[in-house]
């Protein structure tokens, strides 16, 4: 076999089937094989020296942090291999006499017991150079070690990432390590026992610090951190320590810190960017007076997250082209567009420039001290855009959630804002003290919606009438939906005197309806009732609407006959459709036999139909092109 005389394509193909450790041993064969291996395409990667037990060093390649794959192992333990022959490992800067065996995972182990400390360090250093030159390993070293083996580390001044394992040494050794090596990127502590970092002040200036757990971390040390990213697992840090940290945090506005790329993505992405975490957390903004730098503080389930806005600083949303604005707003829910329109007059103008389908809105008041504002695409299919509440337990419930100002042309409100966990609908926690200011806000919000989102100016309400006084200022309403309520007909009459209902009143009341006894609503053009067992003859015969549709009633045949008789006499001039479900048997033939459903006064004709307890009466008001009433 003359391996070296094989064509290049064959070499490429053969090396493709070799594990990195096999390629490595091949590169040790001669300078020609070294050159051959180095000509192959190697993905640049980082390496890590692992020193987690005495007298053994691992050299691994790292594709993902904490997911390194061991390439080779060398040990200076006393010989255990009897007759295994030694051989020379030679390359440009390497010259090592050792025995070579393979472990269960086929990783080569070099046994070199006769080497002394400095020669071991030389070997480790030379080996890394070999890896850089032949395998395109990045020159910056990385270590993962128990600090008692620190003296075995190769010669270097700078290290990229360091992972500190359990160790029995104290903070002085830690300080010595950080004096000797300049850690360029991150220190990761996976120490489960009492960490040697406890008491050390040298590592506090490393740019990125990640600690599995830090129960040992005390206020004094905590407040001295001066890093870009600090992520710790469980600690015993108290609220006052966090407050003190935020207060004295020396952000440098000239340096872009806390960007969510490496190494946050490498080491802490699951902690700091978990969508579930962000969804449920409480947010607040802290602003530094000296330079206006702002930071976002979030808390959730014992986690505290502080993020300076330097990450956000350079996004110039308003300077994006119009097409981008259109595209971005397309992806925003109406409630998100609404909050964006509250940011400034410019964003308000931006949102209002978008294409909004004209739609109606509805104020929903179905429980005490909460109002919802919804957009209606289909009746009874409204989608809530925003909720506001003036519940008194605000401060107790929301602790440290900061208030913020919601400002627009007619709106100026200081409130706390949270989001419904399921629907993401924003909830404004308002300190409204009096009814008029609540009414003013509701009215101003509707104006805002009309101007910015092309919501139709006519309001709609869906309410339990006991909350009637919370409704915004208006005289006319398009549709009103009445929910279960405990008020009586006087309140209903008051409502219909106060508001001119232009289109429909819908009663969804299942209990005793307050409509029972009210005569003010009988003139509304369209009356739709889920159920109306309470409806009595006297009230029934007084309806003067265009369309009346009811669910189950106890209307009797003679009541229906009287109703039709009224129509035949020329009353109920507006009537178009009358549909009622009666618990009594209704027979259309009785009515048909009694009447010719054609009215003498104006010649209008009607159609009556019954089916399964339902009575349907339809008046033909218009004539079609053939002169037939429809």
């Amino acid at each position, binding site marked *: 076999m003359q391996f070296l005389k094989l064509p290049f394509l064959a070499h490429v193909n053969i090396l493709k089937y070799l594990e990195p450790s096999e390629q490595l041993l091949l590169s040790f064969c001669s300078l020609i094989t070294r050159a051959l291996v180095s000509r192959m395409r190697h993905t640049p990667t980082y390496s890590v020296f692992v020193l987690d037990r005495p007298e053994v060093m691992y050299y691994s390649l790292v594709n993902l942090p904490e997911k390194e794959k061991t390439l080779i192992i060398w040990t200076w333990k006393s010989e255990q291999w009897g007759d295994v022959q030694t051989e020379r490992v030679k390359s440009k800067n390497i010259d090592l006499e050792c025995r070579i065996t393979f472990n269960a995972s086929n990783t080569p182990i070099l046994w070199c017991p006769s080497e002394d400390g400095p020669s071991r360090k030389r070997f480790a250093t030379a080996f890394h150079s070999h890896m850089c030159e032949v395998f395109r390993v990045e020159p910056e070293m990385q270590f993962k070690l128990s600090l008692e083996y620190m003296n075995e580390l190769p010669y270097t001044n700078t290290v990229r990432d360091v992972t500190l394992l359990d160790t029995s040494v104290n903070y002085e050794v830690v300080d010595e390590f950080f004096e000797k090596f300049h850690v360029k990127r991150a220190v990761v502590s996976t120490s489960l026992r009492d960490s040697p970092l406890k008491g050390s002040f040298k590592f506090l200036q490393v740019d990125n610090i990640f600690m599995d757990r830090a129960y040992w971390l005390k206020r004094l040390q905590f407040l001295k951190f001066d890093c870009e990213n600090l992520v710790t697992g469980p600690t015993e840090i108290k609220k006052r320590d966090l407050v003190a940290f935020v207060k004295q945090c020396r952000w440098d506005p000239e340096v872009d810190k806390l960007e969510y790329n490496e190494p946050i993505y490498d080491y802490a992405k699951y902690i700091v960017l978990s969508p579930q975490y962000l969804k449920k957390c409480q947010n607040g903004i802290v602003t530094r007076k000296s330079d206006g730098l702002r930071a976002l503080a979030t808390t959730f389930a014992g986690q505290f997250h502080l993020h300076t806005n330097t990450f956000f600083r350079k*996004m110039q949303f308003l300077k994006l082209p119009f097409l981008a604005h259109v595209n971005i707003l397309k992806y925003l829910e109406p409630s998100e567009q609404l909050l964006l329109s509250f940011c400034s007059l410019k964003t308000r103008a931006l949102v209002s420039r978008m294409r909004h389908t004209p739609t109606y809105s509805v104020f929903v008041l179905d429980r005490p001290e909460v109002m919802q504002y919804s957009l209606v695409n289909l009746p009874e299919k409204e989608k809530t855009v925003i909720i506001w509440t003036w519940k008194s337990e605000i401060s107790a419930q929301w602790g440290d959630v900061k208030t913020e100002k919601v400002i627009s042309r007619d709106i100026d409100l200081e409130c706390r804002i949270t989001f419904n966990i399921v629907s993401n609908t924003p909830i404004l926690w308002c300190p409204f003290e009096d009814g008029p200011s609540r009414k003013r806000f509701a009215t101003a919000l509707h104006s805002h919606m009309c101007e910015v989102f092309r919501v139709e100016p006519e309001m709609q309400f869906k309410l339990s009438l006991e909350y009637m006084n919370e409704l915004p200022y208006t005289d006319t309403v398009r549709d009103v939906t009445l929910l279960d309520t405990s008020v009586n007909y006087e309140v209903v009459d008051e409502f219909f005197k106060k508001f001119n209902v232009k289109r429909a009143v819908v009663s969804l009341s299942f209990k005793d309806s307050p409509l029972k006894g009210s005569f003010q609503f009988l003139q509304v053009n369209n009356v739709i009732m889920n159920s109306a067992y309470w409806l009595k003859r006297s009230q029934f015969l007084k309806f003067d609407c265009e369309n009346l549709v009811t669910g189950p009633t106890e209307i009797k045949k003679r009541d229906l006959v009287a109703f039709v008789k009224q129509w035949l006499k020329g009353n109920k001039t507006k009537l178009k459709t009358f549909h009622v479900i009666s618990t009594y048997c209704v027979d259309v033939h009785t009515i048909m036999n009694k009447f010719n459903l054609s009215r003498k006064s104006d010649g209008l004709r009607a159609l009556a139909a019954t089916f399964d307890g339902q009575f349907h009466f339809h008046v033909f008001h218009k004539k079609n092109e053939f002169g037939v009433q429809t």
Partner: protein
Amino acid sequence: MSVEPEVPIVQVEEVRENPVLYKIISSDNHVFTISEHAVKLSKTLWDLITNLGLTAENALDNPIPVENVNGKNMETIVQFCERHKYDEEEPEYTNYIREFVLPEWDRQLLSIDNEELFQLILATNYLDIQKLMDYCCRVIGDMAKDKTPEELRIIYGIPTDAEDDALERSASDSPGPSG
């Protein structure tokens, strides 16, 4: 150690049946090659190629200078176009299309800081690449989820009205170019 060429060239893989490649030079003189199918995703570039009359024979000899896009953004754009060159046309989106899931590969590609994303959108707008514009905007749209107006101001860099007023005042107070 391999020697880096003076001007880095981003190579792309091209299928055998369509070997037509075009060269693009970014504003900072990085040279990119891009396949015909991929370059068609950019209306601006494809119009330019058509108007210049570039063909399979002369395409590589006539690099197209793109003054408004730097190498970093162009690299992202070339990667994106190559990735999506054989995609079928997507249906017209309707409003509120949160249910559309951004593919993981694209999410990774667009996991860049806000400044870069801003610049990439400007580049995408200039090159008229509808799909990339959609994806970038989706990423920005996602940032608004569960954010209060104050947080939106921070995330999107939106000045408050007071800041806007102050900015305008200082602009009107400062002397013009003539002094």
